[in-house]
């Protein structure tokens, strides 16, 4: 019964999306106020119905209802409840349903809370949201129905990809989807503004919280995904330039650029066309990311739902939405009035510099990710572009970007005196010099990029708190603190990346029981090896006694797990976090009866990478609160005061 109710709710939600689109389009062409006013309630009803459909699917998964095809193929009654819940979106159909659910909620939020925009633009925005949802409903209902029944009913399900059985991963897709959907709302705003030619500060203020919100989720998603790959894949690395990682990085890069350009639009009414373009690009990157992951046209460790027909469907949606928006841009942007001009040496100038460099990195990542695909289309040759390309090309540009980040916030809007800017940078430059001296004296021989990274990180850390100097800290707005924390987070993360590649010590030993190995400040002794049965796996468990210098020894247990259903090997690394870094231990499958391969890494300050990521996201949250407070409520107050004055 629940499955049928879910399907019915899904069909009704699709009908509401159609209505939302149709009423919105009608409201734009006709003068009836009633039509325009009806769009918002329809958007809310749409969200409620799709939410109901999603709750139905969650219920089916929690009850392990094996008469539903999706539950039978991707769940198992013996799984812990958290993974049953996560199983809801750990597959193609369920994750698409989660997508439309969040999309619906996003539309309803715009309908209920958006007060800054004029009504026409808001109506156009909601119509565009309806159109986007409609495509995904068609996708779900015609090619990937999550509620399809299975007859005869199997005794039990076929499990979930064991790599996906991890608490961190349970929340990874929802986080990313929140980010993607936030980008879709920004996209809809851009489309709405293009249709009504209403591109200005009010539009930027309405759009900014969505960009900020999406950006926070994308930042958290990437940070968490990176840490997941670090401890789950057992390769000791934190970023692999895997196509799927790139697919999540590209929207983030576009969103970061957009976040900075929308500030220029909101504050100075500049960069109108560019901001619109970036909103479209940011959402297209989200869609392209989804397409690359789902279609399986690129080989990746992530490809779990490979199906060319589904790929075709997403590609079709991509063509409709992005192609449509690009064409609309070409037709309309000429009629949008040009924004305010500014000097090169100014806050705006610095933000344009930021946008250019971010776009360059975006293009580098896009080209690297798609090059194998292009080459295959043209010549039939298959190859893989690896880390050497990305590190060598994106690395230096990213360093330059971070350098620019230290100067930007210290510049005034509209026009600034280069001499004064250099004066304001005096202390960061001193810190940079001191760091250079320290590294030259003590670091020994490390690579050029890690060395530059460490030096720049020190300078940027000093520069990023500089905007707070000589200011009344109580009266400094919350979003300025947000910027400071986020920029400081970049410096912290950069320091972690540089320290990891400069100072990591590693050692690979075929250890016999009783043998001791050394890595960094630690000595590691293999005490014993045992077979451990788990709920749906069996593990080779190594008992390792670890001692740092003359400190208290302690025991850790890295495992090499063999999952039964489906058969798969994974390694559970044992990670010990100290204040100055992490000890990372992995056991591999034995090569012979008496010795076991143990890999050991000492990674100084590697945790800073993710600490920085968390700081960046936290800075975003501070900004979001500050902006919502000032932009929305402040703007509404201003409008009321103006009306009262008239």
């Amino acid at each position, binding site marked *: 019964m629940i499955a049928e109710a879910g399907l019915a709710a899904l069909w009704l939600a699709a009908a509401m999306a159609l209505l939302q689109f149709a009423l919105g389009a009608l409201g734009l062409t006709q003068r009836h106020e009633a039509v325009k006013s009806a769009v918002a309630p329809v958007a809310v009803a749409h969200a409620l119905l799709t939410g109901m459909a999603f709750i139905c699917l969650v219920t089916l998964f929690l009850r392990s209802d094996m008469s539903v095809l999706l539950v039978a193929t991707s769940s198992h009654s013996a799984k812990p409840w958290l993974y049953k819940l996560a199983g809801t979106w750990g597959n193609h159909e369920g994750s698409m349903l989660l997508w439309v659910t969040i999309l619906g909620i996003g539309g309803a939020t715009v309908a209920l809370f958006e007060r800054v925009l004029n009504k026409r633009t808001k109506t156009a925005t909601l119509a565009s949201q309806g159109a986007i949802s409609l495509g995904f409903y068609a996708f779900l209902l015609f090619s990937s129905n999550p509620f399809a029944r299975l007859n005869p009913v199997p005794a039990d399900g076929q499990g979930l990809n064991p790599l996906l059985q991890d608490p961190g991963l349970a929340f990874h897709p929802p986080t990313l989807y929140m980010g993607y959907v936030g980008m879709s709302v920004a996209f809809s705003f851009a489309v709405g503004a293009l249709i009504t030619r209403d591109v200005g500060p009010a539009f930027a203020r309405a759009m900014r919280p969505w960009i900020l919100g999406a950006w926070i989720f994308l930042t958290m998603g990437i940070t968490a995904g990176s840490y997941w790959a670090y401890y789950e894949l057992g390769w000791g690395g934190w970023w692999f330039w895997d196509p799927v990682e790139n697919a999540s990085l590209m929207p983030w890069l576009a969103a970061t650029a957009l976040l900075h350009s929308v500030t220029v639009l909101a504050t100075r009414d500049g960069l109108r066309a560019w901001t619109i373009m970036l909103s479209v690009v940011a959402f297209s990157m989200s869609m392209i990311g989804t397409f690359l992951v789902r279609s399986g046209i690129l080989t990746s460790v992530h490809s779990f739902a490979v199906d060319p027909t589904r790929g075709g469907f997403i590609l079709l949606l991509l063509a409709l939405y992005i*192609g449509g928006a*690009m064409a609309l841009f070409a037709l309309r942007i000429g009629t949008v009035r040009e924004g305010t001009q500014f000097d090169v040496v100014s806050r705006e100038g610095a933000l344009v510099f930021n946008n250019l460099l971010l776009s360059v990195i975006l293009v580098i990542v896009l080209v690297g990710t798609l090059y194998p695909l292009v080459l295959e*289309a043209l010549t039939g040759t298959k*190859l893989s572009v690896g880390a050497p390309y990305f590190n060598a090309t994106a690395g230096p540009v990213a360093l330059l970007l971070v350098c620019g980040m230290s100067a930007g916030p210290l510049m005034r809007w509209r026009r600034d005196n280069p001499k004064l800017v250099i004066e304001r940078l005096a202390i960061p430059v001193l810190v940079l010099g001191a760091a250079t001296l320290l590294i030259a004296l003590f670091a020994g021989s490390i690579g050029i990029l890690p060395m530059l990274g460490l030096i720049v990180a020190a300078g940027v850390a000093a520069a990023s708190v500089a905007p707070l100097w000589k200011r009344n800290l109580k009266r400094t707005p919350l979003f300025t603190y947000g910027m400071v924390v986020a920029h400081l987070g970049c410096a912290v993360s950069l320091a972690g990346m540089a320290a990891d590649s400069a100072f990591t010590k590693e050692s*690979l030993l075929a250890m016999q029981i009783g043998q001791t190995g050394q890595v960094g400040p630690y000595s590691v002794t293999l005490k014993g090896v045992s077979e451990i049965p788990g709920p749906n796996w069996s593990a080779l468990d190594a008992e390792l006694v670890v001692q740092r210098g003359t400190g208290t020894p302690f025991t850790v247990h890295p495992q090499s797990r063999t999952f039964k259903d489906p058969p798969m090997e994974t390694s559970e690394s044992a990670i010990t976090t100290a204040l100055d870094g992490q000890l990372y231990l992995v056991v591999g499958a034995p090569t012979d009866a008496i010795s076991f391969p143990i890999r050991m890494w000492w990674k100084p300050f590697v945790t800073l990478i993710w600490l920085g990521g968390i700081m960046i996201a936290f800075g975003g949250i501070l900004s979001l609160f500050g902006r919502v407070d000032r932009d929305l409520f402040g703007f509404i107050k201003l409008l009321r005061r103006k009306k009262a004055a008239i």
Partner: protein
Amino acid sequence: MRRFWLWAPFALFAALFGVFATGLISPTDRYVASGMVGRSMPQFALDGALVPGERLDDRYFVDGKPRLLNVFASWCIPCVAEVPVLIEMKNQGIEITGIAIHDKVEDIQKFLVDNGNPYSRIGMDANSRAQISFGSAGVPETFVVDGKGVIRYQHIGVVTPNDVPIILAKLRGAQ
């Protein structure tokens, strides 16, 4: 003129769409013969990765025994995917030699511990010279080499279980 440039994003997107569509429609596995197929192996000499002092050169292949030559890299993710298939072939008694491009010995050893070792010998081709002389453009690629050191067949891309019968047939043909 300005009007024209406004269509540039759309044109770029259309090109991207074309690439995606081709990628989706075209079959995923194709066999393109390199110019070296049917010819003797080019001269090369590489340092080995498995045992210190060991080397891999073209003379190694001229001992009457047909084998596979797999061009790979530890940083190449598709290469990880084909290792189980290669190990399966190794267990059937087929000798597989490897050429690792743009790689370091430590990384290769890590790769082998992580994924298993199908290789009897691995040559380190740090600047891709040997790879280029084989007429190979990327990783992974697999060549069938007969006992006289003549390249008989080239497989481009990941070796999937479906490709094994073809490769085995080519090896038998190279006897």
